[in-house]
């Protein structure tokens, strides 16, 4: 029984069958990649996991509880954090404040009327936030306006915002999309480092085979909304069905 169990999920958009009978099991403490050509339904599947979309049929169980019908913030409070394709951060806030927000969310829940307390009195949370910034090598930038960061730093910041919540599952939606090779390698190193430092389950949706084969322990291949095969990276590489559906296409 994995930490995330997707069973028989279907999703239609009008006449388009975006997801057809998707079954997926993500084991705890592994890095699981979901790959597939454009339009295979990777993002639709991810959106079903975080509460942005509700599947037509099927079940999504996380840690023994169903996530269907819950709002994004509720699902996050259950322990699923998400990294977006383009880094989503609070651009008007400082780097430290960006980290403090998930800290407050973790401690106080989805809403608390703490209008008369002062942020600068929350010493223990600030220390926690500074420690995580140290972890992603951004401690020297804590007072920066986060909109002014480079793209790579924004990605680091977003990861730190997710990590400070100590999520059980980290979802990454094409974390290296549109990045140069050097940035991609930096991101791979960052993710490897994150994985080596703590027990965390990661689910990566990715296009870039280089990223997938350097990180993933299990790979699910989606094609036209249906899982084609699920296996270890070595077996996926040698699988002729996958070659045909996906890898063959991209190795022009």
């Amino acid at each position, binding site marked *: 029984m994995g930490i995330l169990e997707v069973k028989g999920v279907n999703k239609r958009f009008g006449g388009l069958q975006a997801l057809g009978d998707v079954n997926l099991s993500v084991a705890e403490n592994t890095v699981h990649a979901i790959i597939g050509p454009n339009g295979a339904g990777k993002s639709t599947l991810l959106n079903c996991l975080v509460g942005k979309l509700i599947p037509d049929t099927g079940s999504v169980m996380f840690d023994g509880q169903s996530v269907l019908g819950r709002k994004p*913030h509720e699902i*996050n409070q259950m322990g699923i954090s998400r990294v*977006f394709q383009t880094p989503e951060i*609070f651009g008007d806030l400082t780097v430290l404040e960006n980290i*403090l*927000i998930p800290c407050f969310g973790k401690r106080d829940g989805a809403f608390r009327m*703490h209008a*008369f307390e*002062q942020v600068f009195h929350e010493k223990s949370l600030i220390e926690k936030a500074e420690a995580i910034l140290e972890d992603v090598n951004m401690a020297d930038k804590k007072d920066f306006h986060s909109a002014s960061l480079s793209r790579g730093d924004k990605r680091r910041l977003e990861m730190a915002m997710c990590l400070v919540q100590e999520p059980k599952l980290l979802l990454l939606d094409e974390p290296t999309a549109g990045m140069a090779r050097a940035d991609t390698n930096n991101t791979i190193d960052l993710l490897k480092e994150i994985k080596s430092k703590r027990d965390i389950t990661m689910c990566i949706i990715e296009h870039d085979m280089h990223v997938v084969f350097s990180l993933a322990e299990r790979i699910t291949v989606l094609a036209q909304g249906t899982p084609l095969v699920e296996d270890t990276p070595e077996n996926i590489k040698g699988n002729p069905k996958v070659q045909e559906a996906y890898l063959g296409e991209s190795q022009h």
Partner: protein
Amino acid sequence: MFGLNSKDTSLLLVVAVLTLLAPFILNPFPENSDLAQFNAGYPDLMQRFVIFGIFAIGFNILFGLTGYLSFGHAAFLGVGSYAAIWMMKLLTLNVIPAIFMGIVVAGLFALVVGFVSLRRSGIYFSILTLAFAQMSYALAYSVLTPITGGETGLQIKPIDRPLLSNLEPGEIGRANLFGIEMGNSYLLNVGGWQFTFNAGYYIAAVVMLIAFYISIRIFRSPFGMMLRAVKSNQNRLNYTGLNSKPYTLAAFVISGMYAGLAGGLMVAMDTQVGPERMFWTASGEVVLMAILGGVGTLIGPVLGAGMIKYMENILSKINDAILHQWFAFMPDGLENFKVAIIHPFIGKGWHLTLGIVFMLVVIFLPGGLVEGGQRIGRLFRRKKRKDKPSPDATPAE
């Protein structure tokens, strides 16, 4: 001090000193001089400065922090006023229950309006709030005449017998605070100057300082940080495990309560209310105040409110006769020419001046008057540094 950091404490103290010394500061010109008409130190106007300051501070908590632009905030001001005057008519002429009732009723009304309007964001939110405010105006103007007095509004009349105030038969009640009447003033004559210390002004000023202090606390609180996060990236906030809806609703209700407080204070000062207080121009005015002063800054809205109220009351008083007096030393033709040029910008044309000032501020100082102040401050600092290099910049030995 007061649980604030040193910068905010000094801001609060400066504002407190300026507010309490306002009767001096706003009356810089001797009583008999030509410039006396630019004096703003009379009770009615000073009261308006601080009351609209409160209104704008509250509006800024919503607009400045969350970015939700409400175009119907005058509705809460009006509702607060009606609630307050009914307290005075029925219960007591003491202003405290009236103001308290104004806050509570406006807060409840804001809860309803906010709950509905916050289902949408951006322009649709603004339109929804505008619709609510115009409905409230229409209700007060006609449908609810028995409660609101319709077009003429409500005043305290000789027949009003508040339960707890012992009035002589036929005596018209006057608003007071434990016996201190709002209209009481103490005049101080020094040389050619006359300074007015008005009880109503000082009560309103103390309330404004408390309101300002609370707003600083909100700005610096985790709650305030969440509101800024809503403005910056609501999507991210939701995916970070925080529910943005109650945060925005709480901000909306708080700013509605500030408006109710301002409405209650207005009634406390002049014991009357009319439906025009809820008209959409009144809602637009507070938007102008916030933008003119500096959206999302602590002191900006108060400055904006002061500036608009000053122009409304002082510029509109200047008429052609006064202009002719000023330019009397010139040859007749030139005098008439100058008067004709300035004429559209004064008196009833003060809106034109306001419009031009507003455009200039938005184009050249998007951060409002506060940004202007900061730029001047920076300019001076740079100049000083150039004039005499600071000691640590010169090499030691």
